[in-house]
């Protein structure tokens, strides 16, 4: 995998990791076509009692992870922190691939896919529906991400004019992307406002939109820290410690804010005693708190934040916490205790794996053959 991230040298052979990734991607593509042809019943384990499966959970996790793009845009373009400029392109490419996977998964997930375009039909659109709002925002935001990603390819092919247009209106483009992100990241949480009777009370809250928004900022920063650290390490560049410290501090600040909202909400609802129950969800809640909040906060509020490994590992734990949270909200926390729990079919799993492999492959290709770093791949340090 690591070899994929090395800069392109025409005399070097294609790395060995390319072929297994390509194979997994092709299997995923084949199974996706099979699912579209035969329907959801024969290919997935979803039922009337579990109408949403693992694909929705992956969407709910990938969207905040791909929030790296809007978080770093906000810091670079609006807070004017030039330190972050080295991060913006890898973050935007990762964001675009994340949203592309989400879009494909959603298309495979909807049962009546031949008329998916109804979500864009002005006569049908339901303005009360957060699902409609999320769908529209994600579509528009993908267009924004294409504009932000385009210069990487246009430079390579030496098409200058559109690059200048994009550069000239970058504040407008990035600003629209940030507003759209804030909308759909929070609305993803709002989806569950209609399900107070379904979602476990430790996770259900009227403040879900605010929590999802804060989570997406933390997870986005975490992803950026991890991605940049990996890329620089693989390329053998000198780490920019100052940059990592700043990302780490921003992460710590928003993480603390999230923890405060979550704690206030749990206390306000009188649900603290639920954390002392020895049932599965009580244990999962503690896992989420310890892995997703306490450990990363411990790292980010200590001197470790000054090492490049500090924000990296804090980021890893934050993403684990985010994953646990989104799995509970979209799957485990919705389970009906009297029924056999849902578990995805092998086809659901292989399609997911195939899309993930395709994402890595595409990222590797971009890093190898194009230049996602603004200064010819040199560190600013």
């Amino acid at each position: 995998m690591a070899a994929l991230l090395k800069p392109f040298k025409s005399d070097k052979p294609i790395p060995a990791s390319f072929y297994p990734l390509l194979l997994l991607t092709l299997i995923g593509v084949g199974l996706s076509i099979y699912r579209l042809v035969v329907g959801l019943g024969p290919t997935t384990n979803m039922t009337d009692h579990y109408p949403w499966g693992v694909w929705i959970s992956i969407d709910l996790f990938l969207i905040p992870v791909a929030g790296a793009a809007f978080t770093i845009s906000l810091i670079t373009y609006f807070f004017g922190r030039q330190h972050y400029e080295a991060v913006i392109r890898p973050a935007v490419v990762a964001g675009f691939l994340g949203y592309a996977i989400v879009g494909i998964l959603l298309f495979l997930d909807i049962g009546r896919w031949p008329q998916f375009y109804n979500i864009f039909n002005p006569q049908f659109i339901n303005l009360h529906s957060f699902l409609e709002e999320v769908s529209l925002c994600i579509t528009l935001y993908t267009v924004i991400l294409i504009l932000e990603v385009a210069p990487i390819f246009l430079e390579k092919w030496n098409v200058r004019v559109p690059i200048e247009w994009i550069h000239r209106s970058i504040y407008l483009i990035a600003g629209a992307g940030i507003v759209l992100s804030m909308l759909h990241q929070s609305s993803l949480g709002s989806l569950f406002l209609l399900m107070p009777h379904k979602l476990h009370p430790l996770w259900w809250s009227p403040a879900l939109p605010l929590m999802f928004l804060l989570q997406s900022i933390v997870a986005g920063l975490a992803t950026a820290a991890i991605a940049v650290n990996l890329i620089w390490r693989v390329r053998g560049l000198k780490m920019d410690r100052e940059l990592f410290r700043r990302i780490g501090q921003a992460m710590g600040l928003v993480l603390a804010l999230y923890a405060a909202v979550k704690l206030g909400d749990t206390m306000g609802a009188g649900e603290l005693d639920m954390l002392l129950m020895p049932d599965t969800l009580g244990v999962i809640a503690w896992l989420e708190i310890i892995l997703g909040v306490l450990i990363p906060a411990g790292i980010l509020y200590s001197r470790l934040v000054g090492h490049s490994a500090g924000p990296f590992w804090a980021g890893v734990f934050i993403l684990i916490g985010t994953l646990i949270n989104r799995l509970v909200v979209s799957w485990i926390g919705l389970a009906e205790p009297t029924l056999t729990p849902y578990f995805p079919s092998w086809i659901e799993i292989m399609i997911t794996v195939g899309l993930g492999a395709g994402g890595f492959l595409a990222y590797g290709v971009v890093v190898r053959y194009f230049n996602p770093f603004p200064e010819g791949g040199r560190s600013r340090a």
Partner: protein
Amino acid sequence: MPSISRRDFIKVAGLGIGGALLAPATASAATPTGDDPNNYIGMLYDATMCVGCNACTNACRQWNSTTAEPGGEGGIYDAPRELSGDTWTLIQLYREEENYSFVKRQCMHCVDPACVSGCPVQALQKSSTGPVTYDAGRCIGCRYCMYTCPFDVPRFEWEEVIPKVQKCTLCNDRLEKGLGTACAEICPTGALVWGRRGDLIAEAESRLAAEPDRYVGKVYGKDDAGGTSVMYLSATPFENLGLPSLGNEPIPALSERSANIFLPTILIGGPLLLASIRAISKREGWA
């Protein structure tokens, strides 16, 4: 868990998010279409009068041409165990030692339905006469309705290549012809009756007043979750019959209040915030 509206109140008050979310719940007062919910067509099911004959299930099958789901000994009887893409109503049995009760399942045709509020493409709509209708020509098959419905009513045709969502239509096509619902018209004991929602409430309340010891003292659906068009009387606590305590606030109320606050705040506040951050960062020389 306490009732939903109380829970919201406590949670939001604890957080201090703002007064707007605390707008008082108005049960049965507002409908998506602005109609008087008492004029909706509905049904009243009295569990104490039901003998579990399943005539209603069969009448529904005949009118809507749904496929029987054989089960039981030898598989010769139509014996659905729960609602499905093919079974839009059925009688279920609750039994605990000597006590038992039948309960009829079908779409409740809520006054302010969560499925209608959540549906991205308005495939589900609240008609002005009461039924919650479904239009497969709009539906994208996202199945959000199946999660938002507090009664687990909408079902999916999982085995179809391009499945539809299926549920009771309140015989909308019969109502338009001036007929009653198929299930209520066939009911031999009078356990199930159809009519104007306001009249059904009056009938239910007079039964409660006449024989208070016969029933648990409430008409389920008069106010629950903002009111439903199908209402229940029972001798067994409603929770046992799969009719949960939902509070009196319509399920969509919190979501729609939240939309009214969050969306304009982000749409107007977001760009303003970004512009001022940019202005400040320029002046302070961050960039």
